[in-house]
C-alpha cells in the first residue's frame, strides 16, 4: 500500500478550498450559458458542474474533523489527503447523462496521436492539471475520441467538444471509469468579450 | 477605289516643340503603288512613318491618317496594334531581326500577332519568300545574329512581306548596305512587292534610288512645316 507524503500547507488548503466548492470548479468563463441551451446539431450545452451528481459531497464526514486547523506534521493530515484523493478518484458519474448529446468546453490534453492527428484526448475543466493544482475528480474529466483525427491543436488549447456522452462502469479498483465522448466534433473555443 | 494610305490635313508637333513638326495637306498612296519619299535626316521622316504605321497618332487639329480606309485616330490602342499587324509590313534601317530567333522564325513573326496574315500566308510561305529573296536553305534555321547585314535586310524584307500585307513601309533599308548589295536588294524588294500586290512607301535620302519607283515625292516640299521653318 503506498502512501503519499504530507502536502505543503498552501497546496493542502487549496485542495480543501476546491473541495468545499467542488460544484463550482470553473477555471474558465461560462458566459455562453446565457445563450439558448439547445445548439445547432441538437447538442445541449453543459457546464462542468452538470457532470456531478447532485448531493455528491466527499467532505461529508470530514466536516466534524477540524480540517483546516491541523498542522502539517499531524499524520491525520496525510490520511485526510489520501481519503480525499481516493474519494475524487472514485467520484461517481450521473447515469442520467448516459447517451445524452452534449456540448462541453474545456482544455485539451492529448493522449494518442497518429500521423493523421490526435485520436484521443482528455477534456479537463481547468488549466495546468499537473503540478500546481490537484487533479480534478474523476467526474470532471472526459475521455474524448474525436470523429476525425485533430490537427493543429496542442496541449491546453481550449475547445468545444460535442458528441454523445457515455458513462462507463468498469470493474477496476478505481471505481467508475468516468465519462467518455465518442465520435466527437471539436471546435476551437473563443472566449466571449468581457 | 480608296487609296491604301490616305493623309488629310495632318499636323503633328513633337512633345516640347513650340511649332508643329509636320504639316501635310494631303498624301495618297494607291494600292500596289511604289512611292519614293525623299527626305534628309531630321526632316521628320521617322515621325511620318510612325504616323503612317499608327504607332503615333497626330495630335494637332483634326487631320487624319487612314490605312485601308480606317482612320488611326478613330481606333483604340489595341485596335491600332491589331490593324497594323494585319495590314502593314515594316523594314528598319538595320537591326531588323530578333537575335534569339532563327531566320525562319523571324520571317514568321508577324503571323504570331495576326491570324489574318497567318491565313493569307498559308503553309510554306516563309520558305518560299526566303528562296525568292535568295537566302540559301542552310541558313534558314540558323540564329539570326550570325547573318551579314545584307542577309539580314533581305530576311527583314521577307518578314515584311509574309502574308501579303497591303502596305509596306521601309525606313532607309539600304543605307547600311554597300552599292552592289543595295542594287540587288532593291530589285528583290520591288519584285516581291509587285508579286504580293503591296503598296510600298520607301523613305530614303539617296536620290539615286528614285528612278525605280512609280512616284517620287520630296518630303521637304510636302511638309509645310519644313518650308515654314526653313
Amino acid at each position, binding site marked *: 500500500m*503506498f*502512501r*503519499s*507524503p504530507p502536502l505543503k500547507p498552501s497546496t493542502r488548503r487549496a485542495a480543501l478550498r476546491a473541495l468545499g466548492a467542488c460544484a463550482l470548479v470553473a477555471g474558465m468563463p461560462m458566459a455562453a450559458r446565457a445563450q439558448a441551451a439547445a445548439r445547432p446539431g441538437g447538442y445541449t450545452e453543459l457546464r462542468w458542474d452538470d457532470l456531478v451528481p447532485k448531493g455528491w459531497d466527499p467532505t461529508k464526514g470530514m466536516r466534524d474533523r477540524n480540517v483546516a486547523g491541523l498542522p502539517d506534521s499531524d499524520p491525520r493530515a496525510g490520511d485526510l489527503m489520501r481519503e480525499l*484523493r481516493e474519494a*475524487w*478518484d472514485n467520484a461517481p458519474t450521473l447515469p442520467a447523462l448516459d447517451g445524452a448529446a452534449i456540448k462541453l468546453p474545456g482544455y485539451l*490534453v*492529448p*493522449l*494518442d*496521436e*497518429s*500521423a493523421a492527428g*490526435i*485520436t*484521443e*484526448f*482528455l477534456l479537463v475543466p481547468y488549466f495546468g*492539471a*499537473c*503540478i500546481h493544482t490537484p*487533479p*480534478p475528480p*474523476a467526474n470532471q*474529466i*472526459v*475521455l474524448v475520441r474525436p470523429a476525425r483525427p485533430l490537427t493543429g491543436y*496542442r*496541449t491546453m488549447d481550449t475547445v468545444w467538444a460535442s458528441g454523445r456522452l457515455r458513462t462507463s462502469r*468498469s470493474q*477496476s*479498483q*478505481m471505481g467508475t*471509469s*468516468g*465519462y467518455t465522448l465518442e465520435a466527437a466534433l471539436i471546435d476551437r473555443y473563443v472566449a466571449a468579450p468581457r | 477605289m480608296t487609296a491604301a494610305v490616305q493623309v488629310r490635313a495632318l499636323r503633328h508637333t513633337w512633345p516640347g516643340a513650340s511649332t508643329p513638326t509636320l504639316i501635310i495637306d494631303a498624301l495618297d498612296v494607291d494600292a500596289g503603288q511604289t512611292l519614293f519619299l525623299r527626305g534628309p535626316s531630321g526632316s521628320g521622316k*521617322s515621325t511620318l512613318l*510612325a504616323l503612317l*504605321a499608327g*504607332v*503615333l497618332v497626330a495630335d494637332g487639329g483634326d487631320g487624319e491618317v487612314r490605312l485601308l480606309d480606317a482612320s488611326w485616330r478613330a481606333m483604340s*490602342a*489595341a485596335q491600332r*496594334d*491589331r490593324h497594323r*499587324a494585319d495590314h*502593314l509590313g515594316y523594314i*528598319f534601317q538595320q*537591326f531588323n531581326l*530578333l*537575335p*534569339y*530567333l532563327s531566320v525562319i522564325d523571324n520571317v514568321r513573326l*508577324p503571323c*504570331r*500577332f*495576326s491570324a489574318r496574315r497567318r491565313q493569307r500566308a498559308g503553309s510554306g510561305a516563309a520558305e518560299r519568300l526566303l528562296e525568292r529573296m535568295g537566302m540559301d536553305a542552310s541558313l534558314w534555321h540558323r540564329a539570326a545574329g550570325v547573318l551579314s547585314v545584307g542577309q539580314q535586310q533581305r530576311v527583314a524584307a521577307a*518578314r515584311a512581306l509574309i502574308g501579303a500585307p497591303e502596305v509596306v513601309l521601309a*525606313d532607309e533599308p539600304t543605307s547600311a548596305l554597300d552599292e552592289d548589295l543595295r542594287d540587288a536588294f532593291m530589285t528583290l524588294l520591288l519584285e516581291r512587292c509587285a508579286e504580293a500586290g503591296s503598296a510600298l512607301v520607301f523613305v530614303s535620302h539617296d536620290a539615286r534610288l528614285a528612278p525605280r519607283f512609280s512616284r517620287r515625292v520630296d518630303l521637304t516640299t510636302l511638309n509645310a512645316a519644313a518650308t515654314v521653318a526653313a
Partner: protein
Amino acid sequence: MTPLLGLAARSAWNRRFVLALVVASIALSTFLLLGIERIRQDVRASFSQAVSGTDLIVGARTGSVQLLLYSVFRIGQATQNMRYASAQALAGHRAVAWMVPLSLGDSHRGFPVLGTSAAYFAHFRHGNRQSLSLSQGRAFGAPGLFEVVLGAEVARRLGYALGQPVVISHGDGALTANDHADKPFTVVGVLAPTGTPVDRTVHISLESMEAIHLDWVAGVPLPGLKVPADQVTQHDLAPRQITAVMLGLKSRAAVFSVQRDIQSWRDEPLMAILPGVALDELWDVVGLGERALLAISALVAVVSAAGLVAVVLAGLDARRRELAILRAVGASPRHMLALLALEGGWVTLAGVGTGAVLHTVALALLAPWAQQHFGLVLNAGAALATQWGLIGALLAGGFLASLVPGWRAYRLSLADGLSPRT
C-alpha cells in the same frame, strides 16, 4: 499571351549565362523552403508515431522533454536513475494496468542497448496502436540471459541473423576496453520494421543487463571481481536501478491522479510525463527554430526575386530595338509587359524546378543517415500539400516581381515607338 510564351522562353534562354546566377539563387531558396518544410513535417510525424498507448513515462526528476527524448527516442542521456523498487511499487498501484521497465546506457556498434522485461513486447505500441511483431525468431524469455532481440534497422545494417554473437559495449563503446567481451550475447529474434527508434535498438533483458555489470563498479571493470559468464546465475540478478518506466493505466482518465501520486512519491524524487503533452512542449521549443529558419528562407526568396528584377531591368535598355521590332510586327505595349513578365516566369520556373530536384536528391541521400542515427523516417517521395503551396507561392512571386521590368518595358515601348533611342 500564347504567342509570347515561346518568345519569352527563347529570349530568356538566349541570355541564360546572365540569368544563371538568378536561377541558382531561386533554386537555393526553393531548396531551403521545401527542405525545411519536409523535415519539419516528417520529424513531427516520426516523433508522434514513436509511442502510442502509453499513458505515463516515469523517471528520475529531470526535465519532461529530456525524459521523453531519452526514454522513447534514445537521444541524450539520463542524468539520474530511479530505483527498481519504485517501479515494482508502481506496478502494484491500484490504477496501473501494466508496467514496462527501461534501462539504457550501453550500446553495440553505435546502436543503443535497451534492457527491459518481456512485458515490453506485449505492451509497447507505436503509430496507430500497432504492437511489435517479430520477423524472425522470438522475444527473450525470463530471465533470457545473454539473449538479444534486434530492431529491424540494426539487423539490416549490420547484416545480423539469428544466432549471431553480439558483444555489448559499456556507454558509447568508443573504447574497446569498455566491451563486455567476456559475456557475449546471441541473437534470438529480429523485430519487423516500425519506422520508430525501436528499429535501431538492441533489446536485452534486465537480468542480462545486471549480469554484464556484476563485476563493474561505478562504470569501471574491476579485475579482482571478475565473474565469468557461466557463474552469473549464482548471483542475484534482480536489477537495482533502472532508467525509466512506461505505464499503462486501467482507466485513461486516471492519468492526472496517478501522475500526481508519482510526483509526490515519498521514497524518491520521481517525475511522470504524459508523452503527448511532453511532445507538445518539445514542439514549442523546436517551433521557434523552425519559424526562424522559414523566415530566413523566405528572405532568401525575396532577395532572389530582387536579383531577378535587377538583372532584367539592367538588360532592358539594350533591348529597346527588340521592342521596336515587336511593335512593328503588331505587338502592343501590353504585349511587352506580358513578354517580360513571362520571361521572369520562365526563369523562376527554371529555378524552382532545379531547387525541387536538388531537394529530392538531398533528401534521398539524407534519409538513410537520419533513419540510422535518430530513427527518423524522411520521405523523399511524394510532396506535401504545403510544399506545393510553397512552390506555387514562389512561382507567383517571381512572375509578379517580373511585372516591374515588364512595366518599364511597357513605358519604353510606348515612348520609343519605332525609333528607339539607343
